[in-house]
């Protein structure tokens, strides 16, 4: 029996340890999510009854009630598209400026803000739901899977986020976990988690790069591994670049090809989702073959498509080039060259694309490390960190801020307080002063981003420091301090220091979406909706007219002799007018010409019908006639 346990400072096990509650690692991904657990330094992903670790990050609110997550939710995409939501991670903590990046991937109705958080809300399943609520459903499902697999309650987790996730997106992720009943031990950056999974496995030392291309985000991080220390030197990325863009490129081509075949599709939600589903399949096929083909059916009309690896590579080349440009910037930020890198770890399903592998290998000059399943590696690393945080362990993760944090100064210029790639936790302060005599208040606007002008950065919070004692301009000393905690979350405080009257304000950044942003966003979507609708009506008119002309041509070929020369000339002239109208953009002109042509050819049609009946009746038995009619 142990009477007394002695622990190193800071290494006391949690009070809950041994009470049966376990801590898991969760990779909450754009496309798929994974939950994993580590025991004695060995991580394992938790599988469902059918042995699969990946849970599609899809949530459905079916008509029948309840909530479905994963494959069951995805199964409802075709029957209840309006009740199914995918890729919600792209909207975590998102504002208006980011919404166009997800248009086409997320054809959902956007709700106006309630005024409390100004977070984007979607109308799904007949109700306004926030990305936090929707993500919480995925987390609840992962938690349930873990509890079923481990047969113990699971209340704590390490959750991974893209290194490049900004403050609002991190806060949203934490909130989602809280809604799902999970205490977040730590938010860990995905590339760091991936390195953790690799590093502990191999005991590697030196400089490693993590290239993480997921469904919706790209991250590139440089880490130094040394005796159990994982030190992130620099990181960079793009929150709107990923495999979804590859799918979209293919889908656009498929729809283009259908148009080329004369098929007039109503490009609505269902059509886009069908095209994207086939695109994803074709992309995956091209990972290990040179050519693929598929069948796309929209509104019951099938079409067949082929795609070669070469064509696909050409379509996604610019996206891949962008990832390499970001990667080279990160290397330069750390003052390193590609030759300094010992190895590059590939993370995320999109790194299965052969072009990505070739290009990354070319940049680093070494074949990438791929021995851990790129879909699971992040969750495995998170599980290791969860174990380290609850049961001790000697691993130390030293991470950095992905984006610079600063304040708006005169003229809308950004003064950076915490530069990007600053190790966290960080506490930095800067002094400002008043610019007017007797100024009693100062407006403080916190922004995140690398650009010089406030307008180009992301607004995180605004507040007023009030009660500054009256002084001459430039005499007050206002210290603004920024604290970034180990989760990468920011707290800002300001105080006036000369008079000792410490007016102190603390601000947790909100979701960074003002009412104006929201209004713009709604106007944008309405403007586009009208343009989209007009285009659709025009396309429909053209198709209808083409169909009429084809029918007329067939009739003329067969029964043209029923017309007088004069009648024929009139029909030809009107037909020419219709064809000209079809090349133009006016739906009204097309419809008017089509109607004129129809009126003009009416007598011809009647004559043909009469003749047809006479022909059919002459010398036919009643039985023949009936079978004819039945055709």
């Amino acid at each position, binding site marked *: 029996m142990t009477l007394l346990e002695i622990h190193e400072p*800071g290494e006391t096990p949690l009070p809950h340890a041994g009470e049966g509650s376990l801590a898991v690692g969760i990779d909450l991904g754009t496309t798929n999510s994974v939950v994993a657990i580590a025991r004695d330094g060995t991580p394992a992903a938790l599988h469902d009854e059918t042995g699969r670790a990946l849970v599609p990050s899809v949530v459905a609110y079916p008509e029948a009630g309840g909530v479905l997550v994963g494959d069951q939710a995805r199964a409802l995409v075709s029957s209840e598209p309006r009740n199914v939501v995918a890729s919600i991670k792209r909207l975590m903590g998102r504002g208006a400026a980011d919404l166009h990046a997800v248009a086409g991937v997320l054809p959902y109705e956007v709700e106006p803000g309630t005024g409390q958080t100004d977070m984007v809300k979607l109308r799904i399943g007949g109700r306004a739901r926030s990305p936090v609520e929707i993500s919480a459903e995925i987390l609840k499902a992962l938690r349930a899977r873990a509890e079923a697999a481990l047969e113990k309650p699971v209340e704590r987790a390490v959750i991974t986020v893209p290194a490049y996730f900004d403050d609002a997106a991190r806060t949203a992720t934490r909130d989602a976990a809280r809604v799902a009943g999970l205490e977040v031990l730590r938010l860990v950056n995905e590339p760091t988690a991936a390195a953790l999974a690799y590093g502990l496995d191999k005991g590697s030392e030196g400089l490693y790069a993590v290239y993480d291309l997921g469904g919706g985000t790209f991250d590139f991080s440089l880490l130094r591994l040394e005796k159990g220390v994982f030190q992130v030197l620099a990181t960079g990325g793009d929150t709107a670049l990923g495999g979804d863009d590859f799918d979209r490129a293919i889908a656009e081509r498929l729809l283009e090809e259908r148009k080329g075949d004369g098929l007039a599709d109503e490009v609505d939600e269902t059509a886009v989702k069908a095209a994207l589903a086939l695109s994803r399949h074709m992309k995956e096929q091209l990972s290990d073959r040179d050519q693929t083909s598929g069948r796309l059916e929209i509104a019951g009309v099938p079409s067949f498509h082929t795609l070669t690896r070469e064509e696909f590579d050409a379509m996604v080349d610019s996206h891949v080039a962008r990832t390499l440009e970001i990667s080279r910037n990160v290397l330069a930020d750390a003052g390193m060259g590609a030759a300094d890198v010992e190895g590059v770890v590939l993370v995320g399903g999109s790194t299965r694309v052969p072009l990505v592998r070739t290009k990354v290998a070319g940049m680093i000059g070494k074949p990438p490390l791929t021995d851990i399943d790129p879909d699971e590696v992040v969750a495995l690393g998170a599980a290791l960190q969860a174990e380290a945080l*609850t049961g001790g362990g000697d691993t130390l993760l030293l991470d950095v801020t992905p984006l610079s944090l600063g304040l708006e100064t005169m003229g809308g210029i950004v003064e950076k307080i915490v530069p990007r790639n600053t*190790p966290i936790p960080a506490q930095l302060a800067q002094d400002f002063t008043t610019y007017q005599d007797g100024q009693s208040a100062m407006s403080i606007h916190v922004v995140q981003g690398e650009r010089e002008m406030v307008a180009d950065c992301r607004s995180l919070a605004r507040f007023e420091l009030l009660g500054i004692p009256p002084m001459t301009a430039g005499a007050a000393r206002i210290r603004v301090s920024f604290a970034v*905690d180990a989760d990468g979350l920011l707290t800002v405080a300001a105080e006036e220091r000369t008079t000792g009257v410490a007016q102190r304000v603390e601000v947790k950044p909100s979701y960074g979406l003002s009412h104006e942003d929201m209004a713009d966003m709604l106007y944008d979507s309405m403007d586009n909706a009208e343009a989209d609708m007009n285009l659709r009506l025009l396309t429909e008119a053209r198709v209808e007219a083409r169909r009429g002309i084809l029918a007329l041509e067939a009739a003329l070929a067969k029964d043209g002799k029923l017309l007088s020369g004069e009648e024929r000339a009139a029909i030809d002239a009107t037909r020419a007018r219709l064809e000209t109208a079809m090349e133009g953009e006016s739906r009204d002109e097309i419809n008017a010409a089509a109607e004129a042509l129809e009126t003009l050819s009416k007598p011809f049609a009647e004559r043909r019908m009469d003749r047809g009946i006479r022909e059919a009746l002459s010398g036919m038995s009643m039985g023949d006639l009936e079978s004819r009619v039945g055709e």
Partner: protein
Amino acid sequence: MDHFARLGLPAALDLDAAALDRAYFALQRQWHPDRFVAKPPEDRVRASAEAASVNEAYRTLKDPLSRAFYMAGMAGVDLPGDGKTIDDPDLLMEAMEAREALHDADTPEAVDKLAVEARQDVHKALAELASLFLANDRAAIRKTLLRLRYLDKFAEEARARRMNIDRSNA
């Protein structure tokens, strides 16, 4: 406590990078918030503040240029804020000529050559600084630091120019 003292290192311009890393990692092992997940809130707040100070010390001392500026501040050298106009005519002339050369460089090789030269100048200037600090020649320290700040900016501009050329070639 100054940044050197916090990391338990001698206040020297030619700091041993490996010793700096060792001291930093040891202190982070002690204070990083990950080690305090199960501790009471007041301990966690303290750990976070300590870890942040260690990070700030490390970040300041790791980069030779930022270390030199920090040491100049400790030595009482009066430095103008970043972004102020250059008040040294020699430096002004050097900067103008270099910018012109960068503007005319239109191949990656030409830009790289300028960047390499700038880096060599940085090393030379840093080497000179060490003796200036020993002699506590504040005016000369100031002059050299301003030149270093300019060279650093120039390297950054060369990098941007290089990227633009790469992009337009791609």
